[in-house]
């Protein structure tokens, strides 16, 4: 497991160590974009942006899809997995609260019956 994780983590840190690449992720968080749009946005050549995107793609942060002549970039599965994990943990927080709320509701119902 550790051996499996390390290269993945290295790729992540390398991918995120660059300000432009972090900017690209932020941009893709707002909306999908083509390589051309990203190159324009960050005042870079197409070739330069392709390299950055390929590093991000390798680390799992970005996926790309070519439709016709345009390659569109979006946030990768990895971000989606993190989001799914967060949402599940948030669900668990509410589930735990609501289990405790069940007990409060039972108490109130019992009290009402006694008062009747």
């Amino acid at each position, binding site marked *: 497991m550790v051996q499996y994780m390390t290269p993945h983590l290295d790729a992540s840190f390398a991918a995120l160590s660059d300000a432009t690449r972090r900017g690209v992720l932020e941009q893709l968080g707002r909306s999908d974009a083509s390589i051309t749009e990203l190159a324009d946005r960050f005042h870079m050549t197409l070739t330069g942006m392709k390299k950055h995107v390929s590093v991000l793609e390798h680390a799992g942060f970005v996926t790309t899809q070519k439709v016709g002549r345009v390659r569109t970039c979006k946030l990768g599965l990895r971000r989606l997995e993190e989001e799914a994990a967060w949402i599940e943990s948030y669900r668990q927080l509410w589930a735990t*609260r609501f289990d405790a709320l069940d007990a409060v509701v039972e108490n109130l119902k019992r009290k009402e019956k006694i008062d009747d």
Partner: protein
Amino acid sequence: MTNLTTIERKSERELVVTRMFNGPPRIVFEAWTTPELMQQWWAPKSSGVPLLSCEMDVRAGGGYRLAFGHDAASSFAFFGKYLEVTPPSRLVWTNDESEDAAVTTVTFEEKDGQTLLTLHEVYPSKAALDEAIVGMEDGMPEQFEQLDALLATLGERA
């Protein structure tokens, strides 16, 4: 046998949590609007972070403040105000601890003597909800220790 809690990211800036309760809306509503009762369930023991204080002025325009932590020095608070209070069916409040925080709407719907509870959080923007998901861990360490523990449990199961 406990009822199922479901959660869904309904849109780019909305989260919806639902759950059935075995009691009528007026009772469930009471548990959400009485400070002494809120204290019994909002921060259950297993969450590891106790509720230090709970002040709630439950009426439209009234404020609330929930402080969590083990002592005053390490505590952190959630606060805001009620926008709408309609017993026993609807509560709306703001979360004012951050500009990017959600507005929360809770509805209590009667279903054959039981209550369908829907908690609806609307964030000001997609970026705000994304940030809540990615950035919460930095902002509220204590609360997220508990989520970390849950994540670890989930990891073990996978």
